[in-house]
């Protein structure tokens, strides 16, 4: 699990924006969000003892 991956993907997204590559920028944004959510589920393991 590479913790730096979301930042690497975001930086690649910024580079794509600089080169006006819209499609690639959107792909990089999507990958950043997907990896962030995936890493979140990987780390969020402690159960929360709340009742509603």
């Amino acid at each position, binding site marked *: 699990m590479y913790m730096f991956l979301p*930042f690497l993907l975001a*930086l690649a997204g910024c580079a794509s924006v600089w080169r006006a590559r819209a499609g690639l920028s959107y792909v990089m944004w999507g990958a950043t969000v997907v990896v962030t959510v995936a890493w979140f589920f990987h780390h969020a393991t402690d159960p*929360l003892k709340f009742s509603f």
Partner: protein
Amino acid sequence: MNSAQTGEPRSVGAILNMLGLSGISLILTVAFTYQLALGELPCPLCLLQRAGFIAIGMGFLFNMRLGERPSHYAMILIASLVTGFIAMRQVSLHLAPGDPGYGSALWGLHFYTWALIAAVGIICYVALVFVLKDATGKGKGDARVTGFASNAVFAIFALLVAANLLSTVLECGAGQCDDNPVRYLLLK
């Protein structure tokens, strides 16, 4: 054609998107300042909140440099929800009475609490942008924003993303970070 080339005044949307991206850069700068000045290393959830803010910033950046589009605003809202959810999870972890929380506090609130407030605030900000754009009704919706101010805001944001990448590599190496990191893994 863009606003700088035509010499037309910037649209309300363009200005508000630049302000939005500047706000995201400010959030990342404050987090970095605490990391470097106080030596407080970000935990995995803290890093993911930073990544969420960067994804929000990318939405503002898309509006600036690729032209304003509803889908870019949707990206900002989705990333805000993700960031807010991650922050809410961390708030929940430290909610119990007597829990000192993680890291230092700013004006009485820990950074994950500020992250939750900021994520909700950004959603409200996007709503305000829609209202103001509708009220002014001027400017080309899909015009790209270039010029010195736009380039400067873009450069600062890109620099902060690169700095976060470098910092995370130094802190975590090529693996996952400790839950309570106290030192940079690659700077032993």
